[in-house]
């Protein structure tokens, strides 16, 4: 076993554990930020400043009873949370989060800070995102409950509608970046214009970035697009009938999907690990900072904006977002043709 392979395996495990941790951190951040926005204290009893609250939540979830409605479809009911969580973890595998490193000279060859370097990475992310619909839809259907079914149907309609805009926003970036590999696209964004403006694609694709963020929010079923679990209408939507750890898996999947969408946005639009002041080998700090900023934006948005109405969501997705995304792609392609890539 070569040191590089060993390092790759360790890296894979590390990413897996960090994704789990990121979900725990996000739960804490979400509750704290929500409390701050609502002038409450938020969790403060467990550990210093309530920092151990996620741990307490996990312990509580583990000791809860695993319930299944008698009329539910046993196989699919068990399968649905697994699909959700698997898709969430799998999507992050192709996301690069730092420049090549030799771990301070420990390794002979440089190691890529990425679980799998696929040359069609963007499409892989898109494919896995389109597969993650199944987890929610099947959860809704197999529970054999009207709230779950409605939540599942809504989410599939919503995700199909916004997937198109999501894909077109990705397409406009890869037209500018002239590659399907995320590593290439990030490297394309190094350096500065006029000496001080970073060459991030967000400045070339401001509209694309907005479309990506909007569609990404809808894809991850976050407020103001959280229809699949609109609690006032649907109790808890597709996971109404789930309890204990299978509920935790949906919860985990939601937060990991947020992290993945933010990480991909960082790679595509915000220059990935490129940033001033820090050497290339410490670029992952920039990457983490940018992802954290986007995640904060996510939470901020949830506690600021009210939920839309369902028909408004559909109307917006098909009649505003999609045409704008198509026009943006055409304009981008024309610009690249005219000015050269």
């Amino acid at each position, binding site marked *: 076993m070569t040191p590089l392979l060993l390092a790759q395996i360790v890296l894979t495990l590390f990413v897996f554990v960090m994704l789990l941790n990121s979900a725990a951190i996000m739960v804490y951040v979400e509750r704290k930020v929500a409390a701050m926005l609502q002038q409450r204290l938020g969790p403060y009893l467990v550990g210093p400043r309530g920092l151990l609250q996620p741990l307490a939540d996990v312990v509580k979830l583990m000791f809860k009873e695993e319930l299944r409605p008698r009329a539910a479809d046993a196989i699919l009911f068990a399968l649905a949370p697994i699909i959700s969580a698997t898709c969430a973890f799998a999507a992050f595998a192709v996301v690069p989060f730092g420049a090549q490193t030799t771990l301070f000279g420990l390794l002979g060859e440089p190691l890529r800070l990425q679980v799998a370097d696929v040359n*069609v990475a963007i499409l892989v992310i898109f494919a896995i995102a389109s597969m993650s619909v*199944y987890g929610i*839809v099947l959860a809704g*259907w197999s529970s054999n409950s009207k709230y779950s079914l409605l939540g599942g149907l809504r989410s599939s309609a919503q995700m199909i509608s916004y*997937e198109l805009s999501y894909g077109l926003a990705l397409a406009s970036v890869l037209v500018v970046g002239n590659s*399907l590999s995320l590593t290439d696209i990030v490297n394309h964004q190094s350096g500065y214009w006029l000496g001080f403006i970073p060459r991030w694609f967000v400045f070339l694709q401001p509209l694309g970035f907005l479309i990506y963020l909007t569609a990404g929010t809808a894809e991850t079923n976050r407020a103001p697009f959280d229809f699949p679990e609109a609690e006032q209408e649907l109790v808890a939507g597709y996971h109404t009938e789930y309890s204990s750890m299978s509920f935790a898996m949906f919860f985990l999947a939601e937060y990991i999907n947020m992290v993945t969408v933010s990480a991909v946005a960082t790679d595509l639009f915000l220059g990935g690990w490129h940033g001033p002041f820090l050497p290339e080998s410490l670029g992952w700090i920039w990457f983490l900072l940018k992802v954290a900023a986007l995640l904060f934006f996510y939470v901020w948005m949830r506690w600021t904006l009210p939920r839309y109405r369902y028909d408004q969501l559909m109307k917006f997705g098909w009649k505003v977002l999609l045409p704008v995304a198509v026009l943006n792609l055409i304009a981008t392609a024309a610009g690249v043709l005219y000015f050269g890539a």
Partner: protein
Amino acid sequence: MLFYLFAAVAVIASLLVIAQRNPVYSVLLLIASFGALSGLYVLLQAPFVAVIQIIVYAGAIMVLFLFVVMLLNAPHEETQHDERVHPLRRAGPMRFGAILAGALLVELIWALSRSGGDTGAFDGGGVTSVRALGQSLFTDYAFAFEATSILILVAMVGAVVLARAERRGADD
């Protein structure tokens, strides 16, 4: 080795699709079969086609299938009573289906005999690059591409017209 794994999954899943009573399971098994096909494309050095297979078939089309199956909510309830009345289960349609299946079998055997059974290794050199794929699609195969697009557009318009006409009929 991997080829046999993917091929076995594809064949078994496809067979199980038609052996299921519950249409939701059929749809899921079809997705599994598409996933296995996508694995075969990866083995053929065509990652782009593999990912597109997942996005278009497993991701987009099958979600719509599942959507329709769930909305119609057909599972389990297909009892013996249904089987007797169902128009597709009468002798005429079943004979027609048998003829179609026979024709397909003959075609398959003919196609296999033409290739002499030797499928050989696939030369994936040109297809791995998305650029090459796009270039051949929009130059050599431009006519086929545009014709397919128009066909799909016509089908889409037709579906919309049919759906709207039905609703107008219901209103009267």
